[in-house]
């Protein structure tokens, strides 16, 4: 089975630290609610030396279950003979006019993100 890669990008130019990040789906460790509008996703630390990395997502109030379901569908959506590059959320809106989100914009209910790596 080909690996599925999960992409996150905040509203920036993908040219600064923590503007964007990609994890293999197999590195997903889980998710937890942290308040009524925040859901935090955890992944194996990309440097494998410290605490896991995480992406804290702002969502609609109390919509955690729906977002978890959409994440699961995307993370499981790998197919053989494709590049298996899956956008969980791409918030970039200020790229050059002939560019936009790398592919699909991902889970629409995610309105902001904070990427934390160790």
């Amino acid at each position, binding site marked *: 089975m080909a690996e599925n890669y999960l992409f996150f990008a905040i509203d920036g130019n993908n040219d600064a630290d923590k503007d964007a990040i990609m994890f293999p789906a197999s590195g997903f460790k889980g998710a937890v609610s942290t308040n009524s509008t925040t859901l935090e996703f955890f992944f194996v630390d990309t440097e494998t030396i410290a*605490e896991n990395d995480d992406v804290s997502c702002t969502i609609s109030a109390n919509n955690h279950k729906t977002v*978890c379901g959409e994440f*699961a569908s995307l993370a499981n959506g790998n197919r053989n003979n494709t590049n298996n590059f899956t956008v969980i959320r791409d918030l970039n809106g200020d790229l050059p006019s002939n560019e936009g989100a790398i592919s699909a914009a991902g889970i629409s209910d995610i309105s902001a993100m904070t990427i934390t790596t160790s």
Partner: protein
Amino acid sequence: METYLYFRKFRPASFVSTQGSATQTLNTITGLGGDDIDSSTEIAGLVVTPADGTNAAIGGNYSHPGAGGNLTLATSAINSMSNSVLVFDNSTQDSGNGYTFESGDIITITFQQGLETSFMYPASSLMGIEATATGQTTLRFRSLKNNNQDDVVAINHDNGKYENIVNGINAIINGKNHGGVVTVIDGSDGKTVLSPELQGLGVDGLIYTPESGY
């Protein structure tokens, strides 16, 4: 294909505290399935129904609704939330949003998703399932944060149902009907939604203990 296990703690739709005396400490919230509320992020709203027609000791942002009327209080004036006991600022502590309760006042609390109310793990993170009491089975997952300890999910159920719980979890993970997210236990709004594999086992509690707070 990975199966993702979703859990949400037992929480009532609302809780009513009738003040037996003039105190800012509300009655202990019940119906929580064994897992206390320790964060005010789980409080969606507070409404006070005064017993008396007047109360001069209320914040400047409020107008007294009269005896039996309803007044929505600002959650920003929650003083503390620990061990399922909410303490609210009086009008001296918060001159704008505080409210000094009187004996007989009724406070209705509503709830929302807050800190660690719900969580999801990939089935591949499940490390083991152990019987921790006659009526409790504990699932251990690789931790979200990787701080060298496990994240622990304890399920309360009828006595002697450990094997049934284990069989149910095994069926959830290996069943052909899944492959995305599975709601294992959702105890929100005073209702209990269980995966079919866990029904009939008297599941009535869910205690989540991550290795460290989030």
